């Protein structure tokens, strides 16, 4: 079961946060900082899975953004790892070469998609835009922590597109033949 989803940049600014457990704001802030500390020190040769408290974080890095999903330890790691990638592909298709700033300014679109893609895991949107909704499971105030406060801090990073990310094939994937 997913406990929370975080998208952070290298500097630790949160670009998207979704909580599926009840936390108060201080606890959320603490988790965000801890996740950032755990994930950013790892190098590319390491696994994409880190134990975190009594949970596990499955993460993947795209350009300057870390996509992290916190799940139970006995969940299927690879399925979540690919769910992240699937989500990024969807974002990429939706925003046409998605970059960090898209997530900042189009928060109202981006915030809709992760849960739908992670929870139902449909590769629904190959042909078009992602189904706009299906945010089941989001709860509490989706308020982003102060990390989000200033999108201007990282203009250079924001300009990098996610598509040029470390994991190849975000855009040039081999899509299945159209129906």
């Amino acid at each position, binding site marked *: 079961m997913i406990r929370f989803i975080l998208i952070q940049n290298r500097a630790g600014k949160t670009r998207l946060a979704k909580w599926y457990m009840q936390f108060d704001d201080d606890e959320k802030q603490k988790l965000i900082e801890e996740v950032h500390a755990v994930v950013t020190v790892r190098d590319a040769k390491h696994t994409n899975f880190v*134990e975190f408290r009594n949970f596990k974080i499955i993460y993947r890095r795209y350009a300057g953004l870390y996509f992290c999903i916190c799940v139970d330890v006995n969940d299927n790691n690879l399925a979540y790892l690919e769910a992240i990638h699937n989500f990024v592909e969807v974002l990429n298709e939706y925003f046409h070469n998605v970059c960090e700033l898209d997530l900042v300014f189009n*928060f109202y679109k981006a915030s809709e998609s992760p849960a739908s893609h992670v929870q139902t895991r449909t590769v*629904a949107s190959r042909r078009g835009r992602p189904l706009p909704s299906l945010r089941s499971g989001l*709860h509490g105030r989706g308020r982003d922590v102060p990390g989000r406060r200033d999108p*201007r801090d990282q203009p250079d990073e924001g300009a990098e597109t996610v598509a040029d990310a470390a994991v190849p*094939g975000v855009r040039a994937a*081999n899509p299945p033949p159209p*129906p």
Partner: protein
Amino acid sequence: LPARERNGMRFNCLFPAFSSPGKSKEAEIKRINKELANIRSKFKGDKALDGYSKKKYVCKLLFIFLLGHDIDFGHMEAVNLLSSNKYTEKQIGYLFISVLVNSNSELIRLINNAIKNDLASRNPTFMCLALHCIANVGSREMGEAFAADIPRILVAGDSMDSVKQSAALCLLRLYKASPDLVPMGEWTARVVHLLNDQHMGVVTAAVSLITCLCKKNPDDFKTCISLAVSRLSRIVSSASTDLQDYTYYFVPAPWLSVKLLRLLQCYPPPEDAAVKGRLVECLETVLNKAQEPPKSKKVQHSNAKNAILFETISLIIHYDSEPNLLVRACNQLGQFLQHRETNLRYLALESMCTLASSEFSHEAVKTHIDTVINALKTERDVSVRQRAADLLYAMCDRSNAKQIVSEMLRYLETADYAIREEIVLKVAILAEKYAVDYSWYVDTILNLIRIAGDYVSEEVWYRVLQIVTNRDDVQGYAAKTVFEALQAPACHENMVKVGGYILGEFGNLIAGDPRSSPPVQFSLLHSKFHLCSVATRALLLSTYIKFINLFPETKATIQGVLRAGSQLRNADVELQQRAVEYLTLSSVASTDVLATVLEEMPPFPERESSILAKLKRKKGPGAGSALDDGRRDPSSNDINGGVEPTPSTVVSPRGWAIGAWGPPGATPSHLLLRTPSELGCREPPGGRLLRRPSYQGGNGDSSPPPPPRFVCKNNGVLFENQLLQIGVKSEFRQNLGRMYLFYGNKTSVQFQNFSPTVVHPGDLQTHILPLAVQTKRVAAQVDGGAQVQQVLNIECLRDFLTPPLLSVRFRYGGAPQSLTLKLPVTINKFFQPTEMAAQDFFQRWKQLSLPQQEAQKIFKANHPMDAEVTKAKLLGFGSALLDNVDPNPENFVGAGIIQTKALQVGCLLRLEPNAQAQMYRLTLRTSKEPVSRHLCELLAQQF
């Protein structure tokens, strides 16, 4: 789907300030305040806003909120947007509601109304938006308003696929939040049939829902097995192009496959032979596909494929009945152990850990020992190394114990600090469990202390002492080895502790050798004395007094040491007391008395290794899974005489421990000798709890009545049934309290997903704030016979009436269990007794003379009326008992103050027993009306 405006708004246009870098924070705040003023005036203006502007401004507010500024208006406009007919307007309205409106807002009625309208609208897009809003808010109130409607939408014949999908997920969300609100009914049968749906999205959502629901009522959903199997078989056998949109890098519907395999793990193997055959065929196909050359070089392809493979292996392990498949799974994982992808090596190690505990595959796992040892040495990622250490631990048995233990010891020298303690525990356990001869065991533990002394917790060295004490044949060797170890110029303090204890008990066994004659032993130990902490020095003092008994010739020297000013006038009370008592004992007592008092310790009662308990506490999943089920190694009657799954307790070496080392709650026994009370009280309270006769009578899982028996006492058994026992031990001081909960697994099967949580019913939320400091520490798995401990820190902020609830959920053999108990926290726990004279008492009594300040109750005695028992109960209740206040000596009068953070409530009470009528009259006066009534009720139940 209706046509929508694409990119209706661009925020960097709306907010130019944010897209141009280089502006200061002040400028941002200024800009935002200006914008807020503008929006406010637009909303307040006379001119009615059109939908677009309303949407635009609400969206701006949302953006400002997400930037971290507070928003205190615009809610009404957002609610208005809900009734718009335009998708984008509605969507922004719902987003604002989900993020910014909390459940107790007065707008909630309007919102619920809008949601109701949308749910009834038959417009699938609007229905979806409404469903998402319900799920996003997910509060109890939402559940109360809509939980009954959603199943109807879910199974209605005319619902669109996307609506069904949303409805299923929404229901899942509500069910997870408050299971009691979702009514079960005939719809459940129809949900199962959604597994046959044409639309894969619906199927995926339905699988998630069923997986969650079936944990509670496995029988209601049993029919899903065959449906899931046939669905799975269709996916697995389909060509990579069959499922079109649901094919991910040539893998057909990977996520759905994984979910179906997970659903099947909720049940035992299918009984129907045809279904089972089909399933086994599926599992074989997946294993076969793993051997085929990949269809794509992309990592996504192999990840998706392997996700299914690992889930398949989990299912095979879960069934644990197909030796053929188990061995194939093991071989497959063996290939992954050497794969160049770190992820795969990691997952293979993790999966193999569970395979090792199956009797069918244990031998197959053991063949990979060299690869695993190599991984332990060479992997760059610490989490992979840790998995390797786990696997070594799991695959260990008598045949390879020496090799594995020595490898782990070697690894320990370079291991990361983060995992050292765990490795130390594991080595200690393996050494004990599989020791062929005890000298090897003693050597191993002393090596542990030498290599990683800082990480050797007290459980480990307690344990070696227990074992040495219990085994006659190893005592001489232990004394000799420890004596040699102590001769190292620098040795760890734990070594000094072990050495002190062992020489104090068994030093006589090596005293014959002139190299380790009594004076040499003493001076060796005493040379370490000044470098040690207080706890160790206290232990050494005990060693010295034991020496006086063992070796009368050292008496003069030792008395000299004890008499030294640095001991007799030591600033530390414990040391001073020991020095004074021992000195007196040695000079006053006759040799006979001395010999009796200082006799060798009797053997410790055998019970589960305290180290094992510690490891389980430390690390729930994966730990000890192979070792403690005993299935694999039934002939283990070695050192420990076979580990019986008895309630675990941490046992400190009796008579030697001072309070500071003992486990939390251990009886602090500063006088280190074998006093009768100590012999009578061998177990620390944590252990005794579990032996107590059950008060509960072991009734079912239903939540028992509130525990009035805890009103007057703090310790005892809170709950017990056939599976689980919950003991509680608590202490309160002023407005603070600490509660230890002990969960004992009474079965021999592991509990999974064990999660105790503390919840507060409504009004309590603001009043009492139990901070479950170690809630996270409670392992998700509780092994058979094991006990886990949870600590709750409680602070009483205000007076309260209802206690918090403890909700415990876990899975026992696949079947989910849950129970809800009231925590034994009542307002009187925060009582501070107050002594006062009769005069004061009456003065205060008169001050509290308003009718609402008094609560009185006249009731019949339920128990024999015994003055002493009553007295004890009143004291346990927390008040002071005042003598000579009431003219009638039969009556009881008490006084106390209830301490909360916000206020203190003075409280006076009077209890008048009438022995003839077997009645009591209880009168309470406090400065707060509800407190008087509540206390009166609580106390009245006790007599």
